[in-house]
């Protein structure tokens, strides 16, 4: 991902009021991590599994934080139990920042990623997690704010799936 786009995403998260982020580095969006770490408005929590990333973020949300959990698309599979039994059950607003690997517009798509990509949206829909696919930096701040408003309105986790320009 180009540095400018990474900066735009971090700025958008900042503008949307996100202040607590769990993360497991992956291959598409990881440029945002040092930017997030250098901004003191974000409390950054590295995790060893997307499953605990979701649950730690949920705990922080119950403690009043505006939370996001950053993961690769695979992480949705890993954390679906946590999304369901903590996030959905307890009505926890949470922004899932998901790199949409294996999608049509994933510029680094290959046999390694495509299976998980084609089943990601069915997985989210099975969990009844609302989502938006984001392809480029156009209107990024507004889209992230929309997602945060949506998660707070629903009191549920919602997902932003990043592909195309974000996968370069």
């Amino acid at each position, binding site marked *: 991902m180009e540095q400018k786009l990474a900066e735009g995403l971090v700025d958008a998260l900042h503008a949307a009021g996100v202040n607590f982020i769990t993360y497991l580095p992956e291959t598409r969006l990881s440029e945002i991590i040092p930017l997030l770490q250098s901004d003191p408005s974000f409390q950054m929590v590295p995790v060893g599994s997307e499953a605990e990333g979701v649950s730690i973020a*949920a705990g922080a949300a119950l*403690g009043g934080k505006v939370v996001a959990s950053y993961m690769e698309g695979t992480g949705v599979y890993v954390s679906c139990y*946590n999304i369901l039994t903590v996030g959905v059950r307890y009505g926890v607003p949470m922004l899932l920042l998901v790199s949409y690997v294996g999608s049509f517009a994933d510029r680094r798509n290959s046999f390694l990623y495509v299976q998980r990509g084609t089943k990601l949206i069915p997985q989210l829909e099975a969990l009844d997690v609302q989502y938006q696919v984001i392809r480029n930096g156009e209107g990024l701040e507004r889209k992230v704010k929309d997602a945060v408003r949506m998660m707070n309105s629903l009191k549920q986790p919602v997902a932003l799936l990043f592909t195309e320009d974000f996968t370069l």
Partner: protein
Amino acid sequence: MIRYDCFEWLAPQMTDQIVVTSLSGQRVEWGHLSKRDADLNLGSMGNALAVGIGLALALPHRKVFVFESDGSVLLSLFNLPTLANLNPPNMAVFVFDNQAYSGTRISYPSATAGKTDLAAIARGSGIEHAVTVTELDDFKKEATERSTSPACASLSAKSKKLWVIGRSPEAMSISWKPNIASCAI
């Protein structure tokens, strides 16, 4: 030592501490003994520890007690290195290890009924000063330190304890008599 006795002793001492419980019988027992807004009887295997970490990080001025079970910790072992590295000073974790999946009705033995030592895993994950307690008096001694410390800032990161308390699966079905306990952090 039995879990209920530990809870019975702990419950009256809770003031503004946040308590997060896991799924096992402890959820029922703690729910019976404590009726506070600060109790989160989560009811989800493998999630209490992580949710407790999130609460502890978000609310550094509050103490967070997490009551875990052996089966629940075994389901999410990745929590232990994360906890060790984050090391929130306002958090204490009690793992009640009964060596069985008691909710299965047949109390099928968990890995801790075999060769697995949760306290050793915790120490290996970087959680220092792991200890095991088997007697109620020892539990009280360890728990007192955690429950009476006035402020999180006064707690040494290295003084945290993850208590792992166990009892035999055979005892489970007829009484509440544990036979093993361990502790870490």
